[in-house]
């Protein structure tokens, strides 16, 4: 019972991390970094609830995805065409997200900070012998595999990697650096948007102003951990998912919280993120033009 809830919990907690990281991996392969993922998760989680309450769960997922794609597009335009600072833009998206969702909660439901998503508009779960499983778990895994295939086995993937490694050479070979990078930005935004929708109208079934709870940044850490390989983002997502779900399961155990206060259990995913990232970096190599705007000579 405990084991199966831990496993199912890990799988669900993996989804937002792996999905968000997968999108960001593709974007960073093309040389574009978005640290505004946290804000995208939060904003999309909110718009997904609005969409789902109006037209049902599928519409909610779509609205979340499109919201993320739109924010990714704006970030991409700023970074690529205005040669803006990607980190500042990302931080701005995060701050914007916190404000927008807190404001939206009051505006939409007249409640500060919290809104429960009605059961009828949640993504329906698949029933398994161990308990209900969200179909989004499968979607996240499939997306990671497809993204790996796209990056390593297709023509577009070759262009993506070229643009990230040596934009000038890619440009000379006739690849539009701007367009390929913009694709990366929109792709990363869309996946983070879908992950945000999963948080609100599926897994957690609620929308709060802290719903993303640092997952955008944990996804960034997973990007690092994976060494820009989407298949390893699954592993990374599972590691963080496990500790996330362990913290949740352990916090409800009365015997355990008497020994370890639940606040310390809640810290677990963040501490593990730090440890994993600290242990992994140094062995990871990133595209040479990562984070740098491209200027045609």
């Amino acid at each position, binding site marked *: 019972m405990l084991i199966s809830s831990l496993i199912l919990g890990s799988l669900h907690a993996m989804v937002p991390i792996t999905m968000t990281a997968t999108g960001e991996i593709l974007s960073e392969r093309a040389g574009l970094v978005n640290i505004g993922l946290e804000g995208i998760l939060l904003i999309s989680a909110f718009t997904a609830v609005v969409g789902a309450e109006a037209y049902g769960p599928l519409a909610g997922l779509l609205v979340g995805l499109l919201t993320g794609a739109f924010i990714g597009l704006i970030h991409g335009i700023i970074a690529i065409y205005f040669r803006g600072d990607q980190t500042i*833009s990302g931080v701005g998206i995060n701050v914007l997200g916190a404000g927008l969702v807190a404001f939206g909660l009051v505006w939409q439901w007249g409640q500060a900070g919290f809104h429960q998503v009605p059961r009828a508009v949640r993504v329906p779960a698949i029933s398994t012998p161990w308990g209900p499983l969200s179909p989004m778990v499968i979607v996240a895994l499939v997306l990671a595999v497809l993204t790996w295939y796209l990056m390593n086995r297709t023509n577009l993937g070759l262009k993506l990697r070229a643009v990230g490694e040596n934009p000038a050479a890619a440009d000379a070979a006739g690849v539009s650096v701007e367009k390929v990078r913009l694709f990366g930005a929109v792709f990363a935004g869309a996946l983070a948007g879908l992950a945000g929708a999963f948080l609100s109208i599926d897994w957690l079934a609620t929308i709060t102003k802290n719903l993303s709870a640092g997952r955008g940044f944990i996804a960034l850490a997973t990007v*690092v951990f994976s060494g820009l390989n989407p298949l390893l983002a699954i592993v990374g997502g599972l590691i963080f998912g496990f500790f996330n779900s362990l913290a949740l399961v352990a916090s409800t155990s009365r015997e355990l919280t008497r020994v370890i206060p639940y606040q310390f259990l809640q810290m677990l995913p963040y501490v593990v993120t730090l440890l994993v990232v600290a242990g992994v970096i140094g062995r990871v190599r990133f595209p040479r033009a990562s984070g740098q705007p491209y200027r045609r000579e």
Partner: protein
Amino acid sequence: MSQLPAEPAARPKQKAAGAGPMLRGALASLVQVVLAAGIGLAIGAIMMNATGYDWKEAYHALWIGSFGDRWGLFDTLADATPLILTGLTFGLCFRAGYFNIGAQGQMIIGALVAVAVGSSLGGVPTLVAVPLVVLAAGIAGAIWSMPAALLKVTRGVHEVISTIMFNWIAIYLSGYLVFNVMNDPRSAERTVRVAENVRMSALLPGADATSALFISVFIAVFFYWLLYHSPWGYEMRVAGFSHDALRYAGANPMRAVNVTFLLAGLASGIAGATQIIGRPPTYALYGDLSNLGNFGFDGIAVALIGRSHPLGTILAAVFFGALSTGARMMQIIAGVPLDMIRVVHGVVIVALAAPELWSILRRSISRRVASRTAPAASGPAAGKGAQQ
């Protein structure tokens, strides 16, 4: 090579030669900042309009609440007090080329230590006790920011990830300490209150500003001196341009990281103390951290609008202090949720991310002016001239 841009592409430009270009640079910078603030407020107005609020009434209330009378002004200064410090945290690191977004966590730790020290100094003369609390909180903030610096130096962990993780750890740590260790038996939702003798009283009865404001201003001036008139500051500024340059100059880039993060953490730790001993009427820390607000994250916008200059940060902190103070009045009078103002913050930051936006804008304006004054055929040529 780390996974994120190690050195942000756009640095505040410092032109060396002559007062003319320098002045022009400062002016352009000022125009950019004012435009970004204007865009933020404009998008806020559009959003309020779209969601059915009266934006004119809202901004009127914002003005009344922030600068409308003496109490408004002093409440604005009360919010500016921690914002100056958290702005310094981000600004100092940004100058040196780092993205320390951990001010919120460093501020929480500072506040916790301020409660711990401030509640145990009963009977000690105020002139001794207050500096002790401030110093202790500052050191605590500095210590809290160190792991991020060390992880950066030794393991190459990007500070954006590590500082955010430490923010979350600080939030849960404070939850534990407030409810289980420092709890006031008479009031379950907050810590014990600090001793009477370390509580700063209001400069204007009925408003929130205290002499903690002078602490913030003093530290800003100290950072200014440090950055522009001391060898450490020189190293930090060089680090901001290029770590290689710093190494060639014979300095140790690792030391630059450590010193920068220490000082940045110091400022935010003290920001936490100002909210505990320098802000009536609570003089304690709430478990939900509500009396620390979002000052840590708001410091990012403050620093960017202040051009990461310590003195500019003071002015920017007054501007954002006015926004957050006025937002409360906006909520009361116009019924607009006060979080709206954080949307303005976000838009301002995003608008400032793209310095080239301004030059593109300027180019297209000068092109339009050129094509209006010159015959139509020479229009594109004039535009091309302006690009150079």
